[in-house]
């Protein structure tokens, strides 16, 4: 089975190459969309770790994007370089995520969903009301774009490559976590907590970690959003945005490593595909309902079923051809 690994690497390399060439020749709007797709992918992949792998729901991912974005914005506006500011934001999210994990030790499922949802709303209120720190409902504007040494990511294309580099590193890190024993422990926690505990897993610690790491990825997404939009305000981190990220994860394919990237692509790009119809949100909602009713494993589920059928028919064709 180790033969899979080189192939996976090749596919990943091809994907990366495609993403490197993709924006060339396209207008800055397309590049902007790609950036926001990468950003949402990171946030959704983080939530996928908490929800898809460890099985603990969080409806607060947008608030972590907010913590990351505000921290990065405030520090870079005070002259910090992005490379110093973003880690602070990510770390802060890690710590806050750890704290938000504590309710998860007591309650599950819908209850946990509501605790995290309430947390997100509280974050929104603080961001809106504490003008001295967050700029209140006016938000913070003119957020500088990163500059690393002599290289500035000010231009649209330069910022895209910057975002791509950060995303690639983040996804690589997540990949490492998921295939390490931690990844196995997260899944074990999701599948059978009591059994996992009886096999020596400290389920409390791993639950908290699932929240903290997932939140930290949300924070990183926020740290990208601040210089991407160059303006942040509380509404970008309201509960609705958290639900949007959740939608990306579930529509893409819960607990599937690449599902969130697909889900994010759908949520970010679908409005583009349906532009011109007045009914695109209606079409979109109907599509999601149909998808959930007919194929709850999401887009990745559809893709896998399709590939499995393809492989089967190919195998059938091969056996037929033999005699």
């Amino acid at each position, binding site marked *: 089975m180790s033969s899979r690994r080189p192939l996976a690497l090749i596919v990943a390399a091809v994907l990366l190459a495609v993403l490197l060439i993709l924006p060339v020749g396209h207008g800055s709007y397309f590049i902007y969309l790609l950036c926001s797709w990468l950003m949402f992918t990171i946030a959704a992949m983080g939530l996928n770790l908490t929800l898809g792998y460890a099985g603990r729901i969080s409806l607060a991912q947008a608030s972590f994007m907010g913590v990351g974005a505000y921290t990065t914005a405030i520090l870079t506006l005070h002259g910090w370089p992005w490379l110093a500011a973003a880690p602070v934001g990510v770390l802060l999210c890690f710590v806050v995520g750890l704290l938000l994990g504590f309710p998860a030790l007591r309650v599950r499922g*819908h209850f946990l969903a509501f605790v995290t949802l309430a947390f997100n709303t*509280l974050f929104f209120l603080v961001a809106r009301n504490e003008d001295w720190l967050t700029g209140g409902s006016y938000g913070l504007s003119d957020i500088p774009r990163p500059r690393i040494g002599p290289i500035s990511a000010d231009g649209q294309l330069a910022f895209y490559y910057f975002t791509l580099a950060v995303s690639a590193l983040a996804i690589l890190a997540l990949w490492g976590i998921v295939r390490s024993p931690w990844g196995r422990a997260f899944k074990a926690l999701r599948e059978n907590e009591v059994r996992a505990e009886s096999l020596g897993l400290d389920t409390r610690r791993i639950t908290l970690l699932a929240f903290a790491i997932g939140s930290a990825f949300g924070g990183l997404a926020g740290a990208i959003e601040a210089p991407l939009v160059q303006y942040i305000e509380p509404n970008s981190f309201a509960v609705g945005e958290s639900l949007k990220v959740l939608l990306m994860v579930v529509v893409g394919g819960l607990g599937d490593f690449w599902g969130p990237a697909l889900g994010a692509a759908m949520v970010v790009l679908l409005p583009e595909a349906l532009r011109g119809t007045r009914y695109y949100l209606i079409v979109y909602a109907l599509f999601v309902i149909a998808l*959930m009713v007919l194929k709850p494993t999401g887009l990745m589920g559809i893709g896998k079923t399709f590939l499995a059928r393809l492989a089967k028919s190919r195998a059938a064709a091969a056996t037929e051809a033999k005699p």
Partner: protein
Amino acid sequence: MSQFLQVVLSGLSTGSIYALAAVGFALVWQAAQTVNFAQGEFVMLPAFFALVAIHWFGWPLWAGFAFAMLASLAILGLAFKGLVVQPMMPDGGLPLVIATMAVSILLKESVKTFYGAEAQPFPSPLPDGTLQIGGAVISIRDLFDLLASLAVVGGLTLFLDRTRTGRQMQAAAQSPAVAEILGVDVARMTLYAFLVNAALAAFASFLVSPTYLAKFSNGESLGLVAFIAAIVGGFNRIRGALVGGLLVGVLDNLVATYVTQEYRAALPLVLLIAVILWRPQGLLGDAEGRTV
């Protein structure tokens, strides 16, 4: 003192609307073990059914209300259960929750696209007058809202406890497998729960819209408050949802009046978190028995 009385009375009347939405939410939770993220939109929509009948078809007021009630039963009860919830019942869980979120977008956008984005005045058969109570003023409509909610919740409790169908509904919600063995038609009882929810939503819509106007986005805040009310009160008891709704309505006003306007939305949330962590069965709920 009259100010205190004023905001408490107004809070009770607002809270009674929350309570109606919360009761329906609790019923659906019981019957299908799902959180209906479209509950707020369920309360928003029936007013537009009535407006369509009155303004587009030119029907009289009572016919508009009747039409809205029937349309709600058909779409929010029958169709919602049959097309969305039922096919997903075996797995349920998160995909179902996501589907209800999509339903919420669908309802909002449909109203906006096909009726209009602006708030609409909504007719009320009730008179406009007000009553003086110890220095506070309460409108006849507010008083009616409060009494009507109490009556509905009281009536529903009686129905569930005293009638055969009601008891069967409770049994089906508590333990579908056992109920099935005892000869209860569980599928039918689940359908009843959805129909009652649709009827409650329509009723709440008629009560709330004359005062708060009909608008496609009305469900956004209402849905969240209904969840909070249901959980705070204890969603396995109907009167828990009632108490939760009234409590949230009154506390919201008291906080806004005496503590902070900016953070008035925070108090119900803090209350929610505290209840979930320390008394997850709710203030009035039972720890073990899952009775409706």
